[in-house]
């Protein structure tokens, strides 16, 4: 409802529920504030926004008082100005203010162009925030030239021991923004006020370190701090940013909007872009603290390198490309394999697959993502084909009344998605988590089922049986199709007591869950890596999809993988799958591509990523062109010729023949697709490091050198235009229409036939999951995505090693006691099917007894071994000499 009020004698229109401050701001009336922040609940603590309101006693704060019809507000009277000045003086009396009121400050600004890097900040000249400090602005605005009080320097030690950001509470003005963002927005509860009165200070419980209290290091507190009290370690002394540019975070499938801050040509930090989708002004530790470091990393590949006499020789692009073209011509055909990175852009992916299919006449294409295994991708494609799903966005999490998170630790893999779940729960949504581990989200859940880590299809069969059999029909929305009847019949045979026994989930818990599902109208099922990596991932996905069909108003979406995994698959970087998720077997569609590309396409699905790598051993694959990440494996030695094109050098680079420097996503234009199937624009905001080039450029140069004409792209938009014109599904995509919000691919899906409410084949058979004798533990493997194009963030970004648990085995305290191991000590794990691992343990009750959890970095050689399924039966022993253990 609209209301009218008078602010400073000006008639203002405002909406009910707005504060006087919001009403004033939207009418361009400035009222100074310090504790106010648009993302946070008002606090009214700094008292700078005091106003006079007719009929209201005293001086209410504009940020807390609701605007009302007919209100008469004065914001800038002599009395208010005087009070504000004095309040600011009081704030400054506890903040090193000398520079603010120094009469030489102008000369100082001119002659002392850089800031002093000192341990203790005692003036603006030695403060990392100088130039972007809200206190400086206010002093100027209020015209304060003298401060009536001596500085009361509080003498707190500067807190520097935690990773990512430092805290100097001597500069803190106790506005409480950090405390509020930590508790109201991020629900981390890391920060709070301690003590009271003039001893009040912000800190963690019992003064422990941020690491100890489980801080997520999202940096939200740093971004809202108006002073230099909180400052990122990496960007602290870089000086003020000179410009900001918008782009997309290069790491996970959420694809957060980031603002890159630049000084000169250098990216100094990345912060969440305010108010933009999908992340709405929040970002995780990777997006906040691990982007700039990687762009600027000294170990980046900067020049093309060719190997001569086992020596890497820097060379020109011209020479490198010539050499590659010369070699690749020799390996055209089925001996060629292409491995695309899930961090490549849509344009890169399109050009690369076209190169592989057309120029190299090969059908062996793969994306190097643990989630790009055929059983998972094929079921996703099948679902999308038969039952075009609607776009499911992060916004749907906000709308859901019940959220079911099935498998995986979203707080680690896709923290911003987990944040939205947390926020929804705090707004009253119910949360069910199904995962053997007590994940961070499970701590918040209304219900947490911890099935034995065997096969999630089992629990699904049980749930489906309960839904189908114990419920009379009206709420079921099942179509009476043959598949439906088939499933109903199969479910009749499911033995619930056997399911109880195998999953360890008692029937009453299953019933309780089913009850919840029936009670809610807006259900959202989020599928995580826990299911996606299972051997029976396909069956599980179909099962969950069926569940979402049966339950009215339920939506399902997997949240797995890297920044452009979806885009790479969309572009057909998978054997047997053409751009637009079209099967090579679709004769007419294939013909169209052949016509446009001017050459025949080698058909038939061959291998997915791991299979492709393994085929090298058998000699079927002789040449590799790799923009993705292959873990170090001896198999690669057998390859005749390997071209690596990446941002960083792989560990096994010595087995390669050419190393080509690819540009970082911050250095190129292009597009990426996140888990929502939202196509978003990457912008070139940084000059390309060294001689690095966009992947599509390098690839099309090779193709041209090889004599193929269809690769003469000048810029990335040329590629998008080609996609638009030849991929049927993308005929609706107008490249120029990709604005900041991005475009949802599913929204402009072309005229595919919709078959409503299909049910998929779902296997209810119970396989033998007995633990083999001598292998008493079940190992769950997950693959982390703190990895970017051959760079493990854990290794490259200072601080990540202290928060990541990659390469460590989680074990329950009781089991640890039995094995006499404690956190940090080394164990050896062996499975009955040849999987072997050695590494340190983390003793935690997150994992149930007799189970182990191992999060692998993508560059771990074990990644390849676990692609066939993430659950292994293992034995474990302590390694006596743990000197080698990290």
């Amino acid at each position, binding site marked *: 409802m609209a209301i009218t009020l008078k602010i400073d004698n000006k008639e203002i229109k405002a909406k009910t529920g707005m504060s006087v401050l919001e009403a004033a701001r939207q009418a361009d009336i400035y009222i100074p504030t310090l504790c106010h922040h648009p993302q946070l609940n008002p606090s009214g603590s700094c008292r700078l926004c005091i106003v006079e309101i007719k009929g209201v006693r005293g001086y209410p704060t504009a940020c807390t008082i609701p605007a009302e019809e007919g209100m008469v507000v004065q914001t800038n009277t002599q009395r208010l100005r005087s009070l504000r000045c004095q309040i600011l003086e009081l704030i400054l009396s*506890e903040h090193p203010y000398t520079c603010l009121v120094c009469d030489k400050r102008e000369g100082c600004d001119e002659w002392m162009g850089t800031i002093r890097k000192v341990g203790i900040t005692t003036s603006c000249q030695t403060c990392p925030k100088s130039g972007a400090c809200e206190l400086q602005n206010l002093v100027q605005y209020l015209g304060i030239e003298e401060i009536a009080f001596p500085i009361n320097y509080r003498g707190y030690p500067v807190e520097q021991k935690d990773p990512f950001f430092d805290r100097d509470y001597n500069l803190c003005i106790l506005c409480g923004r950090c405390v509020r963002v930590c508790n109201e927005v991020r629900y981390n509860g890391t920060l709070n006020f301690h003590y009271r009165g003039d001893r009040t200070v912000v800190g963690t419980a019992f003064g422990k370190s941020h690491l100890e209290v489980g801080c997520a290091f999202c940096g939200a507190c740093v971004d809202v701090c108006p002073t230099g009290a909180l400052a990122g370690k990496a960007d602290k002394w870089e000086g003020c940013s000179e410009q900001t540019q918008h782009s997309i975070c290069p790491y996970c499938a959420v694809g957060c909007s980031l603002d890159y801050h630049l000084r000169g040509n250098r990216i100094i930090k990345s912060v969440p872009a305010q108010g933009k989708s999908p992340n709405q002004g929040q970002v995780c530790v990777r997006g906040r603290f691990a982007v700039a470091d990687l762009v600027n990393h000294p170990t980046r590949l900067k020049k093309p390198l060719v190997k001569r006499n086992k020596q890497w020789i820097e060379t020109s692009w011209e020479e490198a490309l010539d050499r590659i073209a010369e070699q690749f011509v020799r390996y055209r055909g089925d001996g060629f394999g292409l491995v695309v990175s899930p961090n490549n852009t849509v344009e890169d992916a399109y050009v690369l697959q076209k190169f592989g299919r057309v120029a190299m006449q090969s059908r062996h294409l793969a994306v190097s993502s643990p989630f790009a295994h055929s059983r998972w991708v094929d079921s996703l494609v099948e679902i999308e084909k038969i039952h075009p799903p609607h776009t499911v966005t992060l916004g749907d999490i906000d709308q859901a009344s019940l959220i079911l998170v099935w498998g995986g630790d979203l707080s680690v893999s896709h923290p911003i998605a987990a944040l939205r779940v947390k926020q929804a729960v705090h707004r009253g949504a119910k949360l069910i988590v199904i995962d053997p581990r007590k994940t961070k989200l499970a701590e918040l859940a209304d219900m947490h089922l911890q099935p034995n880590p065997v096969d999630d299809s089992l629990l699904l069969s049980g749930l489906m049986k309960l839904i189908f059999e114990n419920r009379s029909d009206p709420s079921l929305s099942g179509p009476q199709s043959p598949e439906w009847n088939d499933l109903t019949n199969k479910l009749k045979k499911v033995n619930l007591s056997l399911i109880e026994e195998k999953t360890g989930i008692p029937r009453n818990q299953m019933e309780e869950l089913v009850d919840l599902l029936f009670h809610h109208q807006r259900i959202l099922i989020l599928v995580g890596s826990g299911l996606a990596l299972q051997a029976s991932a396909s069956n599980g996905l179909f099962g969950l999809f069926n569940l979402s069909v049966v339950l009215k108003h339920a939506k399902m979406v997997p949240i797995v993988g890297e920044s452009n995994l979806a885009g790479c698959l969309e572009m057909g970087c998978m054997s047997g799958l053409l751009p637009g998720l079209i099967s090579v077997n679709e004769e007419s569609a294939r013909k169209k591509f052949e016509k446009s590309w001017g050459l025949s396409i080698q058909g038939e699905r061959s291998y997915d990523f791991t299979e492709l790598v393994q085929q090298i051993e058998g000699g079927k694959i002789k040449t590799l062109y790799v923009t993705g990440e292959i873990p170090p494996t001896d198999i690669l030695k057998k390859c005749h010729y390997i071209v690596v094109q990446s941002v960083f050098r792989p560990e096994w680079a010595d087995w390669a023949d050419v190393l080509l420097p690819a540009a970082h996503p911050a250095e190129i234009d292009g597009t990426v697709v996140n888990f929502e199937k939202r196509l978003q624009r990457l912008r070139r905001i940084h000059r390309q490091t060294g001689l690095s080039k966009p992947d599509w450029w390098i690839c099309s140069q090779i193709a041209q050198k090889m004599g193929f004409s269809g690769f003469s792209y000048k810029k990335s938009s040329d590629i998008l235009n080609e996609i638009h014109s030849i991929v049927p599904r993308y005929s609706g995509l107008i490249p120029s229409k990709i604005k900041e919000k991005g475009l949802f691919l599913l929204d402009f899906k072309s005229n595919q036939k919709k078959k409503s409410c299909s049910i998929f084949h779902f296997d209810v058979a119970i396989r033998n999951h007995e633990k083999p004798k001598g292998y008493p533990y079940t190992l769950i493997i997950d693959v982390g995505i703190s990895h970017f194009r051959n760079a493990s963030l854990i290794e490259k970004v200072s601080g990540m090693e202290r928060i990541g648990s990659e390469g460590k085995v989680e074990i329950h305290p009781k089991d640890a006691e039995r094995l006499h191991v404690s956190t940090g000590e080394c164990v050896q794990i062996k499975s009955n099917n040849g999987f072997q691992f050695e590494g340190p343990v983390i003793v935690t009750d997150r994992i149930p007894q007799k189970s182990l959890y191992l999060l692998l970095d993508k560059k771990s050689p074990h990644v390849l071994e676990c692609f066939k399924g993430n659950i292994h039966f293992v034995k474990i022993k302590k390694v006596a000499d743990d000197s080698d253990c990290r």
Partner: protein
Amino acid sequence: MKKDHIQVWVCSGSTCVSKGSLTIRAVFEQEIRKHKLSDRVAVLAGRCSGTCNRGPIAVIEPGHIIYQQLTPEDIPFLVKEHFLKGKPVQRLRTDVSETKTMIPTLMEIDFFKHQQLVVLRNRGRIDPDKIDEYIALDGYAALAKALTSLSPEGIISEIEKAGLRGRGGAGFPTATKWMLCRQADGNPKYVICNGDEGDPGAYMDRSILESDPHAVLEGMAIGARAIGAQRGYIYVRDEYPLAVERVKTAIQQARHYGLLGENIFQTGFDFDVEIIRGGGAFVCGEETALMASIEGKAGRPRSRPPFPAEKGLWEKPTNINNVETWANVPAIISRGAKWYASLGTEKSKGTKIFSLVGKINNSGLVEVPMGITLREIIFGVGGGIPNGKRFKAVQTGGPSGGCIPESMLDLTVDYEALTQAGAIMGSGGLIVMDEDTCMVDVALYFVSFLVEESCGKCTPCRVGLQRMKEMLIKITEGEGEEADIERLEKLARVIGSGSLCGLGQTAPNPVLTTLKYFRNEYEAHIKQKRCPAGVCKKLIVYTIDPQKCTGCGVCVKSCPVDAISGEKKQVHVIDQQLCTRCGSCQEVCSFDAVVIQ
């Protein structure tokens, strides 16, 4: 207890207990048994009568005979004389004031003569641990009346006609507050009893909760009915263990009798109460901080609006009143608004309880009608200033109140008059100061208290008070400049106008009122570097008057820093370099030879 029994009420209020009344009661019981008087004399746990400076107290009924300042050694003699010989022991009945006159009965002492008991009506008359005794004196009749013959609006209208105003300090009309909460959207609604009494020297709430907890419960139940609440909370300082125990017992008994719980008096009205123990923060007496504390958050106030009546506890409409306000309610409902409105002044109705402390003969709790003058309270009820000293000022309303000088002693005690004088009614602390009190030091004391107790949320209160304290310290140490007075006034205005909650808004009152009424003392500290009352250590010098010193050497022994020298029977001298101005020599000198210059 049979009716014809003689009753010995040994006070079991906190003050008397701390003075040993539990032992006294035990000795009484022992002596009564010894003399085989048990079937004639009953020894009972008495309630606080408010004459705390006379404790431990025992009152013999019938007859209102008061024995005071008892020691265990007195009891055998007392029992023999009083109960066997029928002769009251005069020695133990002598007035403690100057006059040393004998007081025949409790109600005849000055202290009680001027009082009018409405809230404290049952004080000393019932055993607070026995609901039957409360009921016997018409307890819960008001609730019955409210539930069976009054509509919720009718209850509010009674309270409105009675003119009851909040006793927590600001004096907001109770009926208006109830009506706002009644009309607010939202369910459930809550009522809260604010018993987080934190003013130094004030203990009205404690005494009510300890001596008549059912009156508070009954008042809350009536209020809950009027507002439409079904749940109440009593927030009590954790430093009041006895009050907590008594309220706990009272709640249990009331539940047992069906006076709390479901379907009270078969009217379909459900109401129950829970005790929340405070964590010791003064600021939690502020209503929004108190509610945050109940919610399990740190006790920090938030901005109003929204007021608790709209969004209070857990964002639900909440009515919060002080202990004394709630305890007034049953009396109003049973005896009628008209009777209540006949007490007090035009705008301030009823009575007010004060805790009269400081330099006063009869310190204790007093309940007086509104409109009485300060002079009547201090010199009438309180019996004046001890040791023949001159009255200097009275501080009303605790740390948020102001110091009122002698010239204004005829000020009537009501909300408006006190506010106009720069003080506040507050919850009812009255601290009397005599000529030996330095007003700058007093201001510093209260400001220091508030610096400690400020929650630290808003700038003016957190930083401003600290700066104010530093300035006052500077002045009391003789480092003050003339401009400091103006600076103090300016700072006081910022703190008062700019602070978020009542704590900060009233925090400068002690400074402002002392500056207003005792400016000369500030000037003496600043200009002449002199503390007229001889309190501020940096500005005083202890010397020994050679005329009076007998050379006894007691001061030499008492001096902790060996600053006093002198041969036996010779005049002693204080070494000013060594002296720390602790004042212990002055305390021990029997000849008043140690003087402050």
